[in-house]
């Protein structure tokens, strides 16, 4: 496919992506230029990977999805054994300064696998119970491994991915109710299991969300400082050098989970609104692609990726402005992290991939 054609016919989409990458780098630069530099290198790699993922037909990814999934599952186990530890979490694999976080890619691999296995599954009204059980198994095994890293956010991301796929794919009525029933029955047991396995800081976060006023300077510190950052941005923002919350290290996780808070403090309501509009453009592009796709697999891939992209943005932003609990789901393009950026770019490349091959 000629590159010129791709560029010309999807200029808005590509332009939005470049603007979002730039805004992400700018935000990282305002926090610490070292971060911007590293993230910049990742951005270049991700643009290259974006192009590669455009060239390979998306069906090839789906075809190879069992292998991709198996490799990533193995690497998750490897992380557990020989992973690189940082800030009390063991999430990374790699040599020297190049560190990969396999859990980020697991989200993609899971979606591939689910589509590969179940999209063409002949059925009348929806997935059968045994299929659903399989789908849960494929999700919960890596989710468990990831949650033990510990990385509750990414584990939740996997579950969201499954949920989105199931919603799109459809479940038969009584299966749906059976699932609900099973969940309701299993919930107390699961809760016990989960709660006892949660790390104390994870419990604190949940408690804080349930009762944020309990300890505004202690457990709710993240949310409070995040909202102080966002709120002090005002309409016009404090500018790239005026974000005091970040400068003086009041906002923990400023570069990662709370990068959107930094952006909002620096660029104010107008900036935040602009960023929301950019995200909406991408979501809209994904929506159009999915709806016009002639191939069911193309639909599931575009729709699933769009759903994951949209919910990631929404959950992270909701956390930053204090309406959702603090779970470590990074904001696409904004949060620091090479693997997350690569994942985002691959995902968007695949949406475009579907559009180029399957639509119109």
């Amino acid at each position, binding site marked *: 496919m000629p590159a010129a054609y791709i560029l010309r016919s999807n200029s808005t989409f590509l332009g939005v992506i470049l603007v979002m990458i730039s805004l992400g780098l700018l935000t990282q630069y305002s926090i610490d230029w070292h971060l911007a530099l590293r993230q910049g290198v990742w951005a270049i790699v991700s643009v290259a990977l974006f192009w590669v993922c455009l060239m390979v037909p998306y069906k090839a990814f789906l075809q190879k999805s069992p292998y991709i999934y198996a490799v990533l599952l193995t690497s998750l186990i490897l992380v557990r054994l020989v992973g690189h530890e940082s800030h009390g979490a063991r999430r990374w694999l790699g040599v020297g300064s190049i560190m990969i976080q396999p859990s980020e890619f697991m989200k993609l691999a899971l979606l591939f696998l689910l589509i590969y296995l179940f999209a063409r599954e002949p059925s*009348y009204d929806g997935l059968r119970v045994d299929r659903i059980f399989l789908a849960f198994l494929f999700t919960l095994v890596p989710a468990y491994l990831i949650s033990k890293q510990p990385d509750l956010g990414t584990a939740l991301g996997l579950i969201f991915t499954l949920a989105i796929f199931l919603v799109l794919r459809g479940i038969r*009525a009584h299966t749906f109710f059976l699932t609900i029933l099973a969940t309701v029955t299993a919930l107390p047991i699961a809760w016990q299991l989960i709660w006892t396995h949660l790390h104390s800081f994870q419990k604190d976060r949940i408690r804080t969300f349930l009762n944020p006023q309990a300890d505004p300077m202690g457990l709710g510190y993240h949310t409070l400082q995040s909202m102080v950052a966002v709120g*002090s941005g005002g309409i016009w923002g404090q500018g790239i050098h005026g974000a005091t919350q970040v400068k*003086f290290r009041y906002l923990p996780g400023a570069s990662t989970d709370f990068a959107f808070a930094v952006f909002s403090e620096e660029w104010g309501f107008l900036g935040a609104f602009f960023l929301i509009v950019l995200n909406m453009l991408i979501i809209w592009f994904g929506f159009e692609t999915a709806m016009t796709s002639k191939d069911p697999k193309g639909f599931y891939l575009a*729709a699933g990726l769009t759903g994951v992209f949209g919910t990631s943005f929404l959950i992270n932003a909701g956390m930053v402005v*204090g309406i959702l609990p603090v779970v470590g789901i990074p904001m696409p393009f904004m949060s620091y992290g090479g693997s997350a950026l690569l994942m985002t770019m691959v995902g968007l490349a695949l949406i475009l991939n579907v559009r180029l091959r399957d639509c119109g």
Partner: protein
Amino acid sequence: MKSFQGLSTGRRPMVLREESLSSGLSGEGFLFKLPKTPQGRFKILLVLIGLGLGVLVLRLFTVQITEHEKYLRLANGNILRVVPLPPLRGPILDRNGEILVSNNMNFAVSLIQYGLKDNEDQIMERLSGDLGVPVAEIEDTFDKVRDVLPPYLPIPLLTHLSIAQLARVQMDLWQLHGVVIQAIPDRRYTKGDLAAHMLGYVGSLSVADMKSSYARHFPPGTGIGKTGLEKEYDSVLQGTPGEDRNLVDSQGDVIKKLPPTLPTEGHALRLTIDWRLQKVAEDALGDRKGAVVALDPRNGQVLVMASHPSYDPNMVSGTMSHQLWASLLSDPRTPLSNRGIQGTYPPGSVFKIVTTMAGLDSGAIDPTREFYCNGIFRLHGWDFHDWKKGGHGHIYLKQALMQSCDIFFYRAGMSIGPDRMAAYARTFGLGEKTGIDLPSEAPGLVPDRKWKRKRFNQPWYPGESLPFAIGQGYLTVTPLQMARLMAVVANQGTLVTPHLLLDATGASVKKVATGLPPDHFPPVREGLWEVVNNPSGTGRPVKMKEMEIAGKTGTAQVISNRGPGGPGHHKIRAHSWFVGFAPFSDPRIVVAVLVENGGDGGDTAGPVARDVFKLFYEDYIRGATPETAAGAKE
């Protein structure tokens, strides 16, 4: 397989569809119609995401626009740490510019709570060793205020460090995290115990002060006036604290120092007091208990305000030991009391001035009528004696004042009656605070029938009018009130409000016309002139060749039930008064002297007053420099 919709509605037949993109959960009988196709459900998902984005925008609007101010304030509170810097207290000068109170620089060792982790005990112990003060004492000082003050403010643990203490702490400072040495100004009273009561003293902020609306924002280590002028004019003297402003991070570590705002020194107080006159008065009082008040009868400027026994405010303001404080408080001679405004005494014969004015007004006294005093006044079968055995013989008002004849005034007092007497006493400013700019002034007491009824539930007995007429009995006054009373005689009818702050605008001068008939003053003044200048006057020890002085002596009998013989009424040595003014023709100074248990007024109090008059004459009249002459006016 049956579809849910088929089961629930039965309207449609069971349909088998080969379509791969068939609907899963669907149902018209459901709460709402769910889309049957994945595309339909994707639309719903998108709508939900869209709604979520809408909520997000609304939330951003509230946080960033509606509540922007609130969060901005929080953000600023986060990063800006303001440590107040104590200002220098304003100095206090006498009317001629002599410095009475200035500041000393002192070193204090202070502790910032932020610096403390779990090593508090260690630091306290080390400090205790360096300072030679028990640990408990340091901890006590610290614990008293640690919860009241923000944790970034240094809390003074010990002030007025000696050089040795300073050196030891300085050497250990590297291992005393959170400990700082601060330079804290404190008061220096240059004349020692001179005018100590009037000047007052400064103490450290109490916990109550730190919570009060007035002193809440004072930096730790700031002094606050506890008594006297230091208290009265504390807000003037305080000055404005400066601010040391730092940007700090969440650990409390300073990231950047901002330019500090320097403290501004408090305003200087220029007093109406003349320290030389004050000194002469205090020297003359010596070890005796008593008070000297001098004021300018034209405007109420107080020239002397002395009270003995005294104390050294330098000791009280600095590192005062608890023993010293306790001994000052428990001393039976009450050295902390400012007798000039807080001591209440019977005025004795000085009050005969009021009786005279009341008598002249009511017709009970006629200066041209001769009176015979045989030394005894008989009332309802009781004999009241004159102080002079055998009486004063044939006298007029002038002689009655001059020799302080009691019988003459008994007679007048009987016909004036207690209520009218009380009314005149109040006209002269007795029974109420003079309004001087000092805290804790006593009002004294002017009795009348109503008061007697209220206080003792008894009627006024006629026999009580006799001691009232000669300034005995229930009547009590302060030396300042006596000076003010004499000022009315000196300026012939104006009640001035005494004040201590010299004020070039004259705004602080407050005068009230008493409404007393002007032609009644000359007879009184002539009598008072005779008191001093007639060889047989009671105030003859006060007489000066250079300047004509007029005045009245008083020898106020005191009855105490704390006498040597146990409870019961005992006569103890009378209080000695002299109250006078000068120069007679153009009065510029009134002096009131009280010596507790001094005996005869003319002999004991008189010479003290004379010393003050003498120096006043030398400084203000004979060798009047333009400067001092101007200073006497307002």
